[in-house]
């Protein structure tokens, strides 16, 4: 019923394919540049943004240090308010719990609020296998679901589609899922929204089970919070009789006052709005108001392992705003699917290899899917130093070392497939740690400088396929220094770059 991330190629191969897709590049360029410019304006309006950002990071760090305490407090308050709390160690357990809960209602369908956690667990497929149909009701998630596609962005899952593609998907696929698209559907945004509204309305009114995630969980009262733009979330959270929320354990905040910080950081970073249109909060159940049964499934799925890593744990601060995707030059060219996970872009490149480990070729390639330009860190509203974590995870791939995997302390071995690189690095280090050898190498290169081919064979092709090589200079800097300034050299002079002008280039 939907695409799958299983068996996807490593990032470089997938990206080589997607960068060639001109339409995709155009869609992404347009969308990411529009939203990144809007975000910059929305953030610039606040003169205390850096203080907010520091507070956002500090609150999350402190909460994560005492996560056990706040989760137990949350469980107690949710239960006291009439909800039921379930603990899921991994994706499979979460899916099993949700499937059982839906079955217990006797229903075979559910409406869904856009949720990253259930994308992460692959809930829709698990429900489908159990004969339960889950309907995505977020506009972009609907587009993805109808198109038998995968989300490619955290906030805008269908960012890779333009409106004529969406028109086509609605026209050909809506009938399979419910109310067909109106005759003569155009690609005008208002018409597309109206088609979605009509299609979804019948689902909202019929559904007796709703499935959601949450942006925040407030421990002091056991309250869950969903922020959204469309109002479909409000429908799913209030109309069904049973509400099941699957939420990552890192989403807890201690108090309502903490929301003051995040409800400023999130919308400005995410949709570039001062305030998102809908903020829904609910606490357990209330007689005669909203769902009469509420289940909270707390999802670990690698989060505790991530928390054990002193460098990598900062990824758990993430509030899923997607600002890092929108400024990332790599995401903009490669697109979200190349990351092989519901979490694409810079945050995905540090989150996925921690949640899923670096065992597969794809996950081991993700920390390298960055030029370390630092634009992501600059815009992150909770100051996750993404480049620092990327480099840290690269180390885990090539050097191995201690880690926690499924609660067990292990010593990871270096990944395979890096033997040639490791040897090259070692050789470079050997030479660079011996100036005499370095000088000899430079002399050799200078002598052979006319022999450098325009295109290199083997691994060097990755460079020369698209770039010319620089000319090798006749004399290295250190040889020049030695000749003109070193022991026994004549008086200093002629230091100007003009003697032998431009030889180096």
């Amino acid at each position, binding site marked *: 019923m939907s695409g799958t991330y299983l068996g996807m190629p490593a990032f470089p191969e997938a990206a080589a394919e997607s960068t060639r897709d001109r339409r995709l590049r155009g869609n992404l360029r347009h969308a990411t540049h529009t939203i990144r410019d809007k975000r910059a304006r929305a953030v610039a309006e606040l003169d205390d943004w850096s203080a907010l950002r520091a507070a956002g990071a500090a609150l999350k760090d402190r909460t994560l240090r005492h996560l056990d305490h706040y989760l137990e407090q949350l469980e107690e308050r949710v239960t006291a308010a009439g909800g039921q709390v379930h603990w899921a160690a991994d994706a499979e357990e979460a899916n099993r719990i949700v499937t059982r809960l839906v079955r217990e209602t006797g229903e075979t369908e559910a409406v869904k609020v856009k949720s990253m956690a259930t994308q992460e667990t692959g809930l829709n497929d698990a429900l489908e296998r159990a004969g339960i149909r889950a309907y995505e009701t977020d506009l972009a998630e609907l587009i993805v679901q109808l198109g038998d596609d995968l989300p490619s962005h955290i906030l805008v899952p269908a960012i890779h589609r333009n409106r004529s593609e969406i028109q086509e998907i609605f026209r050909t696929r809506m009938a399979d899922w419910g109310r067909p698209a109106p005759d003569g559907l155009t690609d005008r945004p208002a018409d597309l929204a109206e088609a979605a509204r009509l299609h979804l309305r019948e689902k909202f009114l019929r559904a007796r089970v709703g499935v959601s995630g949450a942006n925040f969980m407030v421990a002091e009262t056991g309250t869950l919070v969903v922020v959204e733009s469309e109002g479909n979330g409000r429908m799913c959270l209030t109309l069904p009789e049973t509400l099941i929320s699957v939420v990552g354990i890192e989403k807890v905040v201690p108090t309502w006052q903490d929301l003051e910080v995040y409800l400023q950081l999130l919308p400005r970073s995410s949709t570039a709005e001062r305030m998102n249109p809908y903020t829904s909060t609910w606490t357990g159940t209330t007689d005669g108001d909203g769902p009469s049964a509420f289940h909270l499934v707390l999802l670990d799925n690698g989060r505790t392992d991530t928390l054990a890593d002193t460098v990598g744990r900062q990824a758990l601060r993430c509030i899923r705003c997607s600002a890092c995707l929108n400024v990332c030059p790599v995401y903009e060219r490669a697109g979200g699917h190349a990351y092989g996970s519901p979490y694409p872009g810079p945050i995905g490149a540090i989150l996925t290899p921690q949640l899923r480990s670096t065992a597969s070729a794809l996950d081991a390639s993700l920390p390298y899917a960055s030029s370390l330009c630092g634009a992501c860190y600059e815009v992150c509203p909770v100051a996750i130093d993404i480049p620092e974590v990327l480099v840290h995870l690269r180390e885990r791939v090539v050097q191995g070392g201690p880690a926690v995997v499924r609660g067990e302390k292990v010593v990871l071995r270096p990944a395979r497939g890096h033997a040639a690189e490791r040897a090259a690095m070692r050789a470079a280090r050997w030479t660079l740690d011996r*100036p005499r050898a370095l000088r000899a190498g430079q002399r050799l290169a200078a002598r052979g400088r006319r022999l450098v081919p325009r295109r290199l064979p083997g691994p060097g092709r990755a460079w020369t396929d*698209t770039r010319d090589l620089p000319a090798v200079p006749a004399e290295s*800097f250190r040889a020049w220094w030695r000749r003109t*300034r070193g022991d026994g050299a004549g008086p200093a002079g002629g230091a100007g770059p003009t003697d032998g002008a431009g030889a180096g280039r």
Partner: protein
Amino acid sequence: MRVALFVTCINDTLYPDTGRAVVTLLERLGVHVDFPEEQSCCGQPQYNTGYRHGTEPLARRLARAFRDHDHVVVPSGSCAAMVRDNYPRLAERAAAEGRGGAVPGAVRELAARTHELTEFLVDVLGVTDVGAYFPHTVTYHPTCHGLRVLGLGDRPRRLLEHVKGLELRELPGAEECCGFGGTFAVKNPAVSAAMGADKARNIAATGAETVCTVDNSCLLHIGGTLSRLGSGTGPVHLAEILASTEDTPYTPAGIR
């Protein structure tokens, strides 16, 4: 004031003109420059590829080479950022692993004495007019590590604006990465090339004769891409522009 040049391995080996330009420039400004031959590479390629332990001997060597200097001047934003941002981190991580001896205090201390060239000129020497003359059109690409890690701000621009004869052209999308990224360029060649091509297009659109940065590693990629695309714009390191004077004008090889 004892000032040393950390030329960086890439400038030493591939771009000696840049190193010589720094020497010329600093001597013109009355600074005596030292070049300890013990120096080699800051270890950035190793570190950023994940070989942190393999970086440590290089960091120790660099700290040893510059132990006696008050200021270390680096004509490279990313190598300066490596020392400033990551050397303290190397020390921290080694200490956390109970192998603090692998990264002695001197490595951490080097960070505070290390300046990227434009920082040294503007902050330490307090000059923005270095008496340079460069009668060409130039567009400036702020490299990522200079821009976002070091926070060079408008220092390079202020230096360029004081160069006689130089016409500065605005670069569209200037703050976007060129796509080099060290080993990224060969590990993810398709994306790197796509980023490089977009950067090259923006540079070409300025119509400038040269594109200038504070980092030759980025220029290796940008220049190589421009040359492959048959562009008339050549790469030049900022130091070479600043070293050029009316008496001894300098024309980079890349200018046609």
